[in-house]
């Protein structure tokens, strides 16, 4: 049986060059499905990774009770001082989270960029933040440092240039990386200077703290909830970024799958059409083999194998192209919680590639099955006449 299957399958595959045109319909169709699907989902994975990667279990954010955005808080210097003195808090940095409209590189369109005012302790709390060119900003001066993703996507953010925000010109004194997280899409400056520029007095919007772990963060949360001096909540960073990412990744995933399914239906018809025509051009050959005594199973398996071979070829082509073009491709999208741009890299992961190839296999099976069954069921005497 195996030698029958192998021989007929090899024969079909050897026959492919004579059917390049019709075979390429399957290959290109399935390549398109896999490319679009993997491409769109890699966006979701990259976005998710950018937000979730920013969260660490030993860090927490303190923000106004009931809000989901860092923009909405109001914490006085006194409140921050009390919290910093609490035993759960190892380090604390008051942070002001505002946005500034800056022109996107190569366009005339302004987009909002996060400007984050931080205390110097912010660099100890977020040890992934590293200055990669220039230097850090000095407290009290109108100096800013720019994340590398923001520097690449917006105009006028090279080291040494001046950025007009409100009524001041801010000097860009350095660029920083933050382990590929969304922070790389932000601009950072001194908390007090940012507050005064944006006329916020000493009020920060949130506070970032380092704690021993998520349990301490929750304990602090309960303490602040019970304290009438505060209208605040504490969220471990991991939780905070996960909730920020959830809505958007669900949207992208939903969109990606919908487009993928619609294209897949088209690809199935293309595959069916191609395989029916492949089978019909070989009706006499298949009938001859059956007349000689070859069974139906080798015929079905060989047609299916050919369809799967073409589908996998298409799947690999689509997945490979997306991997070459999109993996690591930087993009940005609006974070609805803050109306700012979140920079992220498309992440064409091995899981996504595997999923893309699985779709290709599935399409190959559906596209090959019915023509294969038809080839095996056609009466031999009819098929020998080429009907």
């Amino acid at each position: 049986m195996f030698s029958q299957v192998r021989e007929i399958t090899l024969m079909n595959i050897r026959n492919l060059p004579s059917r390049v045109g019709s075979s390429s319909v399957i290959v290109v169709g399935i390549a398109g499905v896999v490319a679009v699907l993997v491409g769109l989902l890699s966006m979701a994975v990259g976005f998710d990774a950018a937000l979730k990667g920013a969260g660490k279990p030993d860090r927490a954010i303190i923000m106004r009770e009931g809000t989901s955005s860092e923009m909405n808080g109001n914490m006085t210097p006194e409140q921050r001082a009390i919290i910093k003195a609490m035993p759960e808090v190892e380090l604390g940095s008051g942070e002001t989270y505002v946005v500034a409209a800056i022109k996107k590189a190569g366009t005339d369109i302004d987009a909002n960029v996060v400007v984050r005012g931080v205390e110097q302790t912010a660099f100890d709390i977020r040890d992934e933040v590293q200055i990669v060119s220039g230097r850090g900003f000095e407290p009290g001066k109108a100096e800013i440092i720019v994340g590398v993703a923001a520097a690449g996507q917006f105009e006028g953010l090279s080291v040494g240039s001046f950025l007009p925000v409100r009524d001041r010109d801010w000097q860009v004194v350095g660029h920083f990386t933050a382990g590929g997280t969304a922070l790389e899409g932000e601009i950072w400056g001194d908390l007090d200077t940012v507050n005064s520029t944006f006329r916020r007095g000493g009020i920060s919007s949130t506070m970032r703290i380092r704690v021993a772990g998520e349990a301490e963060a929750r304990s602090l949360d309960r303490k602040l909830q019970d304290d009438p001096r505060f209208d605040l909540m504490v969220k471990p960073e991991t939780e905070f970024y996960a909730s920020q990412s959830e809505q958007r990744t669900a949207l992208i995933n939903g969109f990606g799958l919908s487009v993928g399914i619609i294209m897949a239906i088209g690809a199935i018809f293309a595959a069916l059409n191609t395989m029916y025509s492949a089978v019909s051009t070989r009706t006499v050959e298949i009938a001859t083999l059956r007349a000689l005594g070859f069974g139906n199973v080798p015929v079905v398996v060989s047609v299916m194998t050919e369809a799967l071979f073409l589908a996998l070829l298409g799947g690999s082509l689509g997945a490979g192209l997306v991997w070459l073009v999109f993996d690591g491709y930087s993009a940005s999208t609006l974070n609805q919680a803050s109306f700012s741009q979140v920079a992220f890299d498309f992440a064409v992961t091995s899981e996504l590639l595997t999923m893309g190839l699985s779709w290709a296999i599935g399409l190959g099976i559906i596209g090959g099955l019915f023509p294969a069954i038809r080839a095996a069921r056609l009466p031999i005497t009819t098929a020998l006449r080429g009907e």
Partner: protein
Amino acid sequence: MTAAVVCRGLEKTYVKGREQVPVLTGINLEIEQGDFLALMGPSGSGKTTLLNLIGGLDHPTGGEIEVEGQSLGGMSNKALARWRSENVGFIFQFYNLLPVLNAQRNVELPLLLTKLSRKQRQANAETALEIVGLADRARHKPGELSGGQQQRVAIARALVADPRLMVCDEPTGDLDRDTADEILELLQMLNADHGKTIIMVTHDPRAADHAKRTLHMDKGKLVTAGALA
């Protein structure tokens, strides 16, 4: 001599929509081992249908058919396929060779259904090609061979598994006169020297002259008396 083929009251009716089309009506026929029989008759007379039933390519709708001692009437498609591979060699008008395989591989095809080793398969295919006089064309693909040579390869494929019965449907229908004569002489040689029972459907009286005897069919019946009373 024992009979290679026995048909008793053999019937075949096709159903087209709601209509029943009788193609064979009550065929009684006996063909002995080692016979070379030509079946002639006008188009639609049922000769190819009879050949297909004898070759086990189709099921009768009535009567009995026994070929090489095996009653084919109640056999499943799977059993029939296995029986064909062991007992019948097929020769078609348009050769039905697989274009991507060379002559040697085409001839080897029926042996894939046996337990022979690859080496043995190759040796048997070479022998079959030698018998038909095409040993030097073993590596050529069908497209590189003339019509006559392709039919010789098809004959080698039909005899490689050493069946006792060979069924031929218009084997010279696509060939010029001289080439047709060569093919018919080859069939005569297989019948005389190798003891093959050959049943050949043909329109051509000159082709039929190469057979030991000729039966005529018309409207689904044998019009020349067969061997069965």
